[in-house]
């Protein structure tokens, strides 16, 4: 864990419905507990982590403190663009004109990779020791709740793509600087969340390949989420089968079968990613962040 927490950026990605947002929040909590000033940055546009954390009445693009050492921001490309223009242009008035210009908005939206670049630019800004945002304090760690698997890599590779496509100019220069951070395994780690299910496991394997290919990065850790308890030994299962007429025993046996299928998928996951996944249990009463953070501390140490 400590090696993970030494990084500046932890990027959490995974297929839809695997609990990526919850895991990102729990990772943020782990880091905060370890004394790191941490911000969880959500890239999708709805306030998901905030509803996990219960963040009230604030504008999404603001950095809001949720707990000791723990902050949250929701990154919207439009907000990031406005911030960028205000930062880059000599006069606020010119920036305002551009921000209000429909043509500009349209062209910015149509510029290849611009949205992703703006998003990732803000992530980079959050991870700087000397923040560009006036008066903003530095964070020790930025935990990114990234978009679903496929798009996640597109976001990370945006600065590289952009710098290659653009002839020159400040954005291309900045793109190179950002890319240097995003492709430096000392500073960034990508973490995949998966359920022990066929499709999620397959996607995680594919992610490993595309990360390597497009960013030269390893898939740092894999977290298998929402696992059913694997309770019974083969001997116990045999003893249970003799009492399968009892409804609770019958259900327990079905649960056992489920656990066995998940075990097989975990083996696939291990094989496809070349590492033993960390394992988070399904919480029957609903995900409990503090407990998930406990489990992560134990598993990732």
């Amino acid at each position, binding site marked *: 864990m400590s090696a993970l927490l030494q990084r500046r950026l932890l990027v959490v990605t995974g297929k*839809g*419905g*695997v609990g990526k*947002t919850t895991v990102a929040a729990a990772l943020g909590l782990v880091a905060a507990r370890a004394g790191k000033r941490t911000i969880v940055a959500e890239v999708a*546009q*709805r306030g*998901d982590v905030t*509803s996990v954390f219960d963040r009230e009445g604030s504008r999404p693009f603001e950095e809001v403190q949720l707990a000791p050492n723990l902050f949250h921001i929701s990154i919207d490309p439009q907000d990031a663009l406005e911030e960028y223009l205000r930062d*880059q*242009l000599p006069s606020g008035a*010119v920036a305002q004109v*551009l921000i209000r*210009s*429909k*043509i*500009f908005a*349209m*062209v910015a*939206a*149509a*510029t*290849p990779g*611009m*949205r992703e670049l703006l998003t990732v630019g803000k992530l980079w800004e959050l991870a700087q020791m000397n923040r560009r945002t006036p008066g903003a304090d530095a964070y020790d760690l930025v935990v990114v709740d990234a978009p*679903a698997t496929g798009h996640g890599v597109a976001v990370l590779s945006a600065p590289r793509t*952009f710098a290659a*496509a*653009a*002839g*020159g*100019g*400040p*954005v*291309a220069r900045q793109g190179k600087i950002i890319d240097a951070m995003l492709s430096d395994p000392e500073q960034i780690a990508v973490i995949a969340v998966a359920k022990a*299910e*066929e*499709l999620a496991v*397959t996607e995680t394997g594919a992610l490993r390949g595309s990360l390597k290919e497009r960013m030269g990065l390893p898939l740092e850790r894999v977290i298998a989420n929402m696992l059913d*308890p694997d*309770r*019974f030994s083969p001997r*116990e299962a045999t*003893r*249970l089968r003799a*009492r399968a007429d*009892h*409804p*609770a*025993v019958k*259900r*327990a046996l*079905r*649960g056992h*079968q*489920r656990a066995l*299928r998940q075990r097989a998928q975990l083996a696939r996951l291990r094989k496809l990613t070349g590492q033993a996944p960390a394992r988070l249990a*399904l919480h*029957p*009463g*609903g995900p409990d962040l503090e407990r998930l953070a406990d489990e992560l501390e134990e598993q990732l140490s």
Partner: protein
Amino acid sequence: MTGDIGERLEGKRICIVAGSGGVGKTTASAALALGLAAAGKRVAVVTIDPARRLADALGLDALGNEPRMVDPAVLEPHGIEMRGELWAMMLDPKATFDGLIAKLAPDAATRDDVLGNRIYAQLSNAIAGSQEFSAVAKLYELDRDGDYDAIVLDTPPSRNALDFLDAPDRLTDFFEGRALKLFLVPTGIAARVMGAGTSVVFGILKKLTGVNLLDDVSVLFRAMGGLIDGFRERATAVKALLADPATTFLIVASPEREPVAEAIFFHQKLREARMAFGGLIVNRAVVLDDDERADPDAIRAQLRDELGDALAAKVAQSAQDLQLLAARNAEAIARLTSALDEPDPIVVPRLDGEVQDIDGLLLLYRHLAGTG
């Protein structure tokens, strides 16, 4: 738990299946289409990204952007007597959008100008919501040309349900917008004044990004000009189709926080857009029979002698977990039924094993039809 999906879809020709990612939309769509086809209808199912194994199971490995009939011989060994026809396709959003451009373009040169443009792909993604628009555009084409009794559309894994409902509107807005008109009026005082503003904007953009987009954008927009009427017509037709009395939306959710929130959000948007809500499917719910709700301590006591206390305690623990999960699922379902004003959702229990073959689809359909 009640309610036959077939009955609910009576008189509906188009069924759009919506919900957040990972809730089983694709399998629900496929199962629904299979069931309707078996019952005698000529059905097309349009999916976005089916699990490889599911596509393989249907013999659809080499899927193009046009529907292909699933061979009844593939289904027969599973006890399915196919009285209708099942057609399936996997949507290729880019191919669909490109195809539309090609169809609407007045000539080959215009078509090539647009399709070959450096920022065309980006533009279609960023502004038109290409995937959403492609999905409904395909739906429209299939409905017009395909002679199907029913079309089931699995929606794109869009985080924002609005994208889907809005797609036709946004496309028309875009084409009728001021920005586009600017590029379409190459002469005149207005153009020169506006044009100056435009070049300033592009100038700053170029300075910042180092990308000179002005030429690309101008070429693209001039070429698009010839397509405006066609696009407007198409967007209007698609919108009419979405609001047609024969079109209905099914919302799929799993009983967890995020999918429930998305389902409620989408339902609200449907209502605002005055589109038909055809029903709620709660997928993968843990539902217990009465005899599975026994007190865990009682279970432990009952089984202690035979299994020994340690094993009996484990069984009791697993019953307790399951009861907790079932209670949480029931809460989520209650929240959904009240928010969606749908007292009678179709609840599909969490099945043993993933649905990735024909038997799985059949089982799923039986639950949808209330005979599971």
